């Protein structure tokens, strides 16, 4: 039952992450353990999810579900990732006053947030291995694009869509036009 597997996978992802980029490591792990997606697909997915409106987690769940099992797949994946909202947050909404300043949740976040950072660093290592090393060794053009984009993001505060569009153009130049010329 691929639908049930998708639902459970994304429910696990939902409950153990805090949205945004912190979901990416968990998605990568679930996707590769089921053989649903490669690291290359995941990198494309992150770019697509950043380019389209809406929360990253929903975009990722829809896209992955769609790739794995079509429209019904995307619906169960989205419902899975929403399970924390429908259960835990719903309970909290009902007892809102009591949870306003919860020492337990604060202490949980104090431990879990740094762990999320560590997981994201782990994904950076995995994706770097996949992205910057081809069969012929280091892909110098890709490393160059990465360096330039990091500079533009940090120093010039470029927006993510602008970064993605310009690296798409550079990709076409280096990996499309250049091989044709040589």
């Amino acid at each position, binding site marked *: 039952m691929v639908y049930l597997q998708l639902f459970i996978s994304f429910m696990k992802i939902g409950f153990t992450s805090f949205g945004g980029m912190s979901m990416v490591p968990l998605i990568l792990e679930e996707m590769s353990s089921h053989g649903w997606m490669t690291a290359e697909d995941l990198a494309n997915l992150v770019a697509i999810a950043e380019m389209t409106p809406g929360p990253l987690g929903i975009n990722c769940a*829809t896209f992955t579900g769609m790739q794995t099992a079509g429209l019904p797949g995307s619906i169960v994946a989205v419902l899975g990732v929403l399970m924390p909202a429908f259960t835990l947050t719903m309970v909290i909404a009902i007892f809102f006053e009591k949870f*306003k300043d919860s020492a337990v949740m604060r202490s949980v976040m104090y431990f879990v947030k740094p762990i999320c950072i560590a997981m994201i660093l782990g994904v950076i290592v995995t994706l770097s291995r996949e992205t910057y090393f081809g069969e012929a060794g280091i892909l110098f053009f890709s490393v160059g694009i990465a360096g330039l984009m990091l500079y533009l993001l940090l120093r010039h505060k470029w927006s993510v869509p602008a970064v993605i569009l310009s690296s798409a153009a550079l990709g076409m130049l280096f990996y499309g036009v250049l091989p044709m010329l040589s």
Partner: protein
Amino acid sequence: MERIKKGLTIFAFFFKIGCFTFGGGWAILAQMEQEFVNKRQIITKEELLEMVAVGKSCPGIMITNISLLFGYHVAGVFGGLCAVFGIISPAVIILTIVAQFYNAFKNNYWVHAALIGIRAAVVPIIGSAALSLGKDALKTPPAVVICLIAFVLSLFAKVSNILLVLLGVVCALVWWFYSKDRQQKEKEA
């Protein structure tokens, strides 16, 4: 009847907000403030900030948690569900279409070349997100140590991510019980 009408209005609002927001949760939050605090004055700024604080510390996607809290505040459980489905619907529709295009075009020569370029930018994008998250999460030395231990465990000991988070929750609970216990003893002494 009144409740259903309220719910549908909430759905429409959140659908609109969900259509035009790029760049994740914080951009959506800015729109919520404009729409519900400034323009319609349904909630106060303080109430919205409280919802953010709670929504942020629940697992899952921050913005859907906040939407649920808001919807519930205005129109109960039905309102909460309307808000969540409203904010996610545009994303689900758009990504469904994009996924179709992705499958049709990813092997096209030029799309393939563009995707290699885009993939090169994904690591810097994730990296800069990690940097800004890190500024918030790694303020104290113990937090940095937790991060390093988790990094080593995940990369070299191949501990799965889900297990890492669960371990973190267990440690947090132990630490919380311990510090509560100690505070009580200090009070008694």
